[in-house]
Every structure is written in C-alpha cells, then in structure tokens.
C-alpha cells in the first residue's frame, strides 16, 4: 500500500494535541513582528498514529533481521536501556539546574566516564561530543592546541590517514584546518612502519588510525607506528568505530594512541534511530587531558560537580553536556553486561564474522587473506564476469528479507562488501544469511538478471538517485 504525505491526508484542519486551557487572560500581541498566518497541516491523533505506523513498516530495523553493516556494529538494542532513559527523573532534568539538583545525572556521566576509561585503559574522558565525527573533531582540536602550546601549530599542518579510513577522518581533519596525507595499507591490509615512515617529518601533526581497520584486520604494527609518530613529534588518534571486538581483550591505550573516540551507538548498543542520535565520547592520555572540553564532571567529597576550571581546555563543544540520554543507555548496557558479558561480546563478534567468512569464502572473493576480526570483507570479483555487481547483490539481499552489508566501502577495494554480523546474531540467523548469500551467488551464475532487476519485493524498486540530485526536490508543496 501507499501512504500519502502528511499534507495529502484530509484537509489539514485537525489537531491531535491537547491544547491546554489558558486562564491567565489574553494579552494582545501588538508587534510589528507578529506573524500573519502560516499553513502547516494538522492531523488528529488516530491519523498521525496510523501514518507513522504505516511508514514504519517500510523500514528495516535490528528487530527485523540481521543488519550486517560493516563498521556500523548494528547489535541488538536492549529495551531496558530505553526504559531507563525514559525515567522522569532523567527526562525532566533541566541542564542548568545546578550541581545540587542534578546529582543523579552527574553520577551517570561520571560513572560512565570511569567505565570507558577502564575499558580503553585511557586516563581521562569527555562525554560532550554528540557523535563519532564530533569526537574526531574535538580530538583534533586538542591535537592542534597541543602543537600550539609547543609553538608548532603552523608547522605541523598535516594529518596522516590510511586509505581504508572512514570518510569522517579526512573530513574532520580538513574542517579543523589540517592537510591530509593518505597512507597506503599493504597487501595484507595493514599499515607498515615503512609506509608511515615515508611521510614522517616536522610537518606531521598526527595520524588517525582505525583498529581493527575497516578491512576487519587488526593493525598489528600499531605500537611501532605510534612510537614512530610520537618520536617525530606527532600524536596518534584512534578511531573507535571498531572497538567492539576488543572489549575485555585489548586496552586501546596499550596500542599507543593519545586520544580516541567511542561510538556509544555502535559498541554500547544504543539505537541508531535512522541516523542518530549517537554519542562520541573522547578518551585521552594524561599528557593531553588538560585540553579536554569544559566542563568536565568531577567527584569530590561525595559530590559530583561540573568543573570549568581548566584554563587550557579547548572549550565547550556542545550546547550542554552532549547527548545525555544516549550516554545513559550505554551506561545501562555496560552495567547489564558486566565484565564477563563485555568480554564475550568481543569474542562472539569475532567468532560470528569468522564463521561467515569461512562459510562464504568459496562463493565470494576475499581480497585479503589476513585474519578477520569482527567483520569480513568480500568483493564482487567472482560475480563480475556474470555482469553482476556488488550493488546487485545488495539489492537482491533486500528482496530476500536481509539488509545488505556496507557496500563500496572501504574504497581501497573495488566492489567492497563489508559484513559485520555482531555478537547479537544467533547461529540460526547467521546460517539464514549465509544461505541467502550462497543462493545469490548461484543466481548470479545462472540468471544475473534476477539480481540486476532486484529488488522486486520491497516498498519500491531501485530509486533514481541521479534524478534526485539533478533536480533536487527537498520539500513538498501545499
């Protein structure tokens, strides 16, 4: 069925909101700025309820089926987290009501920070960044301040970024005024000391490394690389998008990074919400902790307080204190899992990815031979000869009731399919996904057109994205 746009339903004269009475009398607004009428359709609650319920059925969520988006860590989002975040004592709390009246919220922030420090081995933390990319930017701002305080801001203008990095890495560095130098990973999919050495010099502000990287491979040379960068006067940034497999296994601090962000909406189970909100706390080593954004949350003599005292801080990076509810959900998750649970998360996420790798390797090409961690990278090498591309495989998966993996990323491989099942998937679920992938590889051989013409069973067939960009229609008319 089709669902009309909001303004195509009824005459728009409805109201689905309880307008309260007003006993304070009417004050006539006699302003030159008074608004003279505008038109936004209103609907009754039953209509609104049905409209959005129907729209929701065109979406795919983690509770629909496996959501194997590589580097996105689409794990189960516990309902308990939502319940905790909806407690009135939290939702009704105003961000400016002062330390005395906010001890509960401050406790949540402080304790979450402590847990993240323990998990990563880092020395200090800020919870302000509202997303991973925000955390990257905040970290780079800190790097910049570090070099400025060393009188090297002007010289150290370049950030090294591996070719397999997320797009946010160069975008954040660029936004922060850095030049980008791309570093190639080797044939095994990892960075080498030799390759990084090529670019090291007095112009290097730092390096941004995702580990395990977006090929699903652990950067085994990371400590040597970190040491090298440090020796050259640069700093090392860890993109924490792929933290999941390391939980309880490796403390990122030990790999030599100076700052890292954590995507709470990936590793710590908070829902992605169709695009957000996320949260991107940044953990740092002691030598740069003075640059962390103000305010910090501290605990002294039995009381939690916002501390604005740090003079070297880069300053505030969010209107208040970040996406508090998201942090609260992640905190709930960590307490639910406990140390044993967290360790199993890492273990099972790697087990699941390797299981898929093993079961699919005879059907899809593996561009890298190195061991996979929590995600595995295939491409369409085997299918190309039948005129079938990664995109076709992805769309055919949709037809079969599965969300496709991350496609055409990372860019270092053509036709990438990056599969991250997460630990939330049962064996039955993995087997079903594998079965679908295998059947698609057969279809590709036998009748590629099925794939090229897919999807057929979804809300719509392939959407003309070129038209959308050429003639942008970004709002409706009424």
């Amino acid at each position, binding site marked *: 069925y089709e669902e009309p746009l909001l303004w195509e339903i009824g005459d728009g004269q409805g109201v689905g909101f309880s307008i309260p009475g007003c006993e304070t009398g009417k004050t006539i607004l006699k302003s030159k700025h008074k608004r003279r009428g505008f038109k936004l359709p209103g609907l009754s609650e039953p209509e609104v309820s049905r409209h959005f319920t129907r729209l929701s059925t065109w*979406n795919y969520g983690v509770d629909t089926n496996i959501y194997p988006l590589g580097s996105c860590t689409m794990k189960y989002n516990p309902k308990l987290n939502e319940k905790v975040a909806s407690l009135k004592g939290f939702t*009704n709390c105003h961000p*400016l009501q002062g330390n005395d009246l906010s001890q509960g919220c401050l406790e949540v922030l402080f304790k979450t920070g402590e847990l993240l420090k323990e998990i990563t081995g880092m020395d200090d933390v800020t919870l302000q960044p509202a*997303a991973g990319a925000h955390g990257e930017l905040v970290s780079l701002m800190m790097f910049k301040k570090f070099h400025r305080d060393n009188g090297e801001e002007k010289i150290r203008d370049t950030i090294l970024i591996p070719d397999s990095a997320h797009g946010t890495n160069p975008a954040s560095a660029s936004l922060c005024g850095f030049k980008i130098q791309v570093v190639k990973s080797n044939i095994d999919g990892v960075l080498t000391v030799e390759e990084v050495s090529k670019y090291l010099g007095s112009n290097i502000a730092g390096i941004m490394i995702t580990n395990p990287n977006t090929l699903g491979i652990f950067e085994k040379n990371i400590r040597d690389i970190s040491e090298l960068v440090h020796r050259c006067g640069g700093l090392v940034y860890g993109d924490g998008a792929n933290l999941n497999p390391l939980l309880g296994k490796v403390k990122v601090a030990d790999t030599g990074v100076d700052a890292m962000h954590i995507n709470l909406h990936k590793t710590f189970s908070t829902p992605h919400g169709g695009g957000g909100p996320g949260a991107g706390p940044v953990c740092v080593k002691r030598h740069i902790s003075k640059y962390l954004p103000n305010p910090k949350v501290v605990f002294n003599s039995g009381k939690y307080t916002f501390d604005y005292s740090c003079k070297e801080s880069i300053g505030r990076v969010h209107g208040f204190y970040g*996406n508090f*509810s998201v942090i609260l959900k992640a905190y709930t998750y960590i307490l639910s899992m*406990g*140390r044993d649970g967290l360790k199993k998360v890492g273990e099972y996420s790697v087990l699941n990815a390797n299981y898929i790798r093993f079961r699919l390797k005879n059907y899809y090409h593996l561009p890298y031979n190195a061991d996979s961690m929590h995600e595995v990278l295939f491409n369409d090498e085997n299918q190309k000869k039948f005129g079938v591309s990664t995109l076709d495989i992805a769309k055919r998966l949709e037809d079969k009731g599965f969300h496709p993996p991350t496609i055409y990323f990372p860019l270092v491989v053509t036709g990438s399919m990056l599969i991250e099942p997460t630990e939330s998937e049962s064996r039955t679920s993995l087997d079903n996904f594998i079965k679908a992938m295998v059947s698609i590889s057969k279809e590709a051989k036998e009748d590629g057109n099925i794939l090229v013409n897919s999807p057929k069973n979804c809300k719509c067939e392939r959407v003309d994205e070129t038209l959308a960009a050429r003639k942008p229609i970004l*709002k409706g008319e009424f």
Partner: protein
Amino acid sequence: MRYLPHSKNDVEDMLKTLGLESISELFSSIPEDLILKDQLNIANGLTEWDLTDYFTQVSDKNYSRKSFLGGGSYSHYIPNIINYLTSRSEFLTSYTPYQPEISQGTLQAVFEYQTYISKYLGMDYSNASMYDGATSFVEGVLLSLRATKRDKVLVSLAINPRYLEVLNTYKEAIGFQVIFMDIDKSGKTNLDKMDSLEDIASVVIQSPNYFGVIEDQDLIKPRIGEEKTLFISIFSEILAFSIFNPPGIYGADIACGEGQSFGLSRSFGGPYLGVFAFSQKLLRLAPGRLVGESVDKNGKRSFCLTLATREQHIRRERATSNICSNQGLCVLRVIIYLSLLGSSGLKKLGEINYNNSEYLKRELLKIGCSINFSGETFNEFVVTYPRELSSKKFFDLGYVPGIEVVDKTLPDNSFLITVTEVFKKSDLDSFIEAIGGVL
C-alpha cells in the same frame, strides 16, 4: 547473558566448523602482549531488576519538577504518542537510510520534516538535522565563511552564551575572526557595528535572543544592502515563530538553532535537535544530510538521500561538513509533534506561552520585581528580583529562581525565566504568593 544468543554448544560447533580449538585462536592476529591478562575491573552484570531499582534511585536524586528554567532547554508538553511511535523498532533501531528501498519510512518522515521546518521558518530548504542548537549555529557561521570566502563574522552578544562558547572553541581551532555587537537598553542588539566593518562573511542575530527579547530583524537586510554578507538568524526557542515572524520573513540566508521545544524532553541537555535551514543559493554548500523526492524504476514516487557529494563519506576531506550520525530520531519526534499541532495548534500554543509569560511579568512587577529590558518578549524574560530574594531563599521555598544573568546593563540579582504552557495560572499565583511572602 540475556543479550547473547549463543549457547555453549553453539560456540563449540562453530569453532569446530572453523577448525579451531578455542576462542583465543580467533585473536591470534593480535600481538600477544597486547592481549589483556586480567579481567576488566568492572562488576559482573546486573539483572534487569537491580538495574531498574538502581536507576530509579539515581534519577530520584535529580530535581525534576516544574521550573522556570529555559535558556536553550524548554519545558513543553510532549504527547505520549510521540514516545509510542518512535519506540517502534523499525524507526528506533534502523541505520541511516542509505538503502532507499528498505528505508522509505525514515526517508518520507525526514522529507516531511524538511517540508514542515522550511515552511515554518519561511526558508527555502531545511537539512535533516545537526547535533543541537549550538553546533547548528556554528555550522551556519562556517557555511557563511565557505560561501563568501571571507573570514570575519559579526555576532550579537545577545546570543546564548553557551552557543558563543562553542563558537569560540571552533574559532580557536579553525581560525576565523568574531566581532561582537553590544546590547542596548531594550535588550536588543546594537547594530551600529554593521556599518563600520567590511568584508564580513555574516551577521548573526538570535531572536528571541538570550534575554528573551525579539530582535528587530527587519533592519538587518537593508543594512547589509548590496554586500554579499549573509544574514544568519538563530534561535533557541523555535516555538516563538508560532506568533512572531520567522527568519525567512526578514530575508535570512541561514536560519539555524535548537528544535528541542518541539517534542524533545529536557533530559539534562541532550539529545536535542540542530535545526538548519537555508536559502536556495546555498544548497550545494550546506552541511548535513538531505532527503529528496525521486521516482523508482517504475516511476513511482520514492525518496532517497541526495546531494551526498557534499558529504564526508563521498567527498572526504572536501566535504561541506564532517557530520555523519545526526539526530535522526529527534527529527522523527519533531515531525510527529508538528503534525499533531498543525499551524492552528501551534498558534494557540504560542499564544498560551505568551499570555502566561506576560501575566507573570505583570504579577512580578506588582510585588516589586523589576524588568529592565524594554523589548518585547515571547515566553522568556529577564527579571530583577529584590535583594531579599537570594538564591537560598528560593531554594527554601522550593523554587529555582531562573538562570542568573550577569551583564553590565543589568542590576544584580537578575535572572532569565521562562514561562511555558505547562504552567497553570494557579502555579504562577502560588509562585508570586511564595516569593511575595518573603518581601
């Protein structure tokens, strides 16, 4: 562990399939000395019941009653249906809608949001959200720098001070100039600096401004004249445009700010919603995600993400912004909220806010408080309490006095207070009576 599906048998079978003996072999690509020897120093997992008890206790440590606090975070009624609909897992647990065929729900909702917001603000377009009001404001400034290729911005000092702090952070890191405009006695921005400066990328005004005062935004564009300087109009209380003119009416090139008032709870400051709208000419430079209408292979109306060539995942270091995760679910909340109200509901709600606020103003004046700024306000204003009314007195009475405002034009003991529709007349009368009793 209740969230982990594998049984012991499952794990053993899967390891056998892989030809492995133990889980640890899966981690053999990690240098051995990086592998932790000890367990994390974290407690064992807690049950659902212990956690519920714990968090109920923790949340009870917060004050969560009605207060007159505003200043960028507002107490408005939130229809329960919003919580209900946004908790549907198809919305809640989905990713960014990169695969349009299985994401039409999110895509259509965002398209509806873009439509409602751009019309409500009187702007050409809206994006699909930034993090919050403060970062949205900064993105507006950055866009103006990009669009004009200039490096100076003229900014009102009547902007929310926390927003200005964030601007300062970005300014320090990125490197551009900020010149401030003072406040006059009415509580409005003194625009005189606009005439004496050149090469300004943008003029930025907040209205209602931080003191709740409606700025004379009609004066901006004429004063910019033929210059290519952009006019950025920002806001923290988006509901004001239900009865006051929106930025678009005054020719704003960028209208950005906070959308929290439209169905998001206060939640100690987040997640909120960075609203970001702009004029057509800025389309290809604008930051953030956009949803566009298109057709599928059969010519059927469908929606998809568009103009992604501005974005980091395509353009990398040449992207118009580094944003990736935005505030998707907050967008959904806002469009549900707006569809429940429509323009007629919004207008009524705005009037209640205004009436309540004006009523409290009058009553405060009666008992000896003063209101120093003469400019008109919507639902927030600055009040100066008599000296007898110290913060401690307020706490003893069970009230929060508001947000303290320190400004050279204002006497001591001045506070920004906000009065929305959640206050009944009896609430306001009780407040007046309580503090009146101290005087």
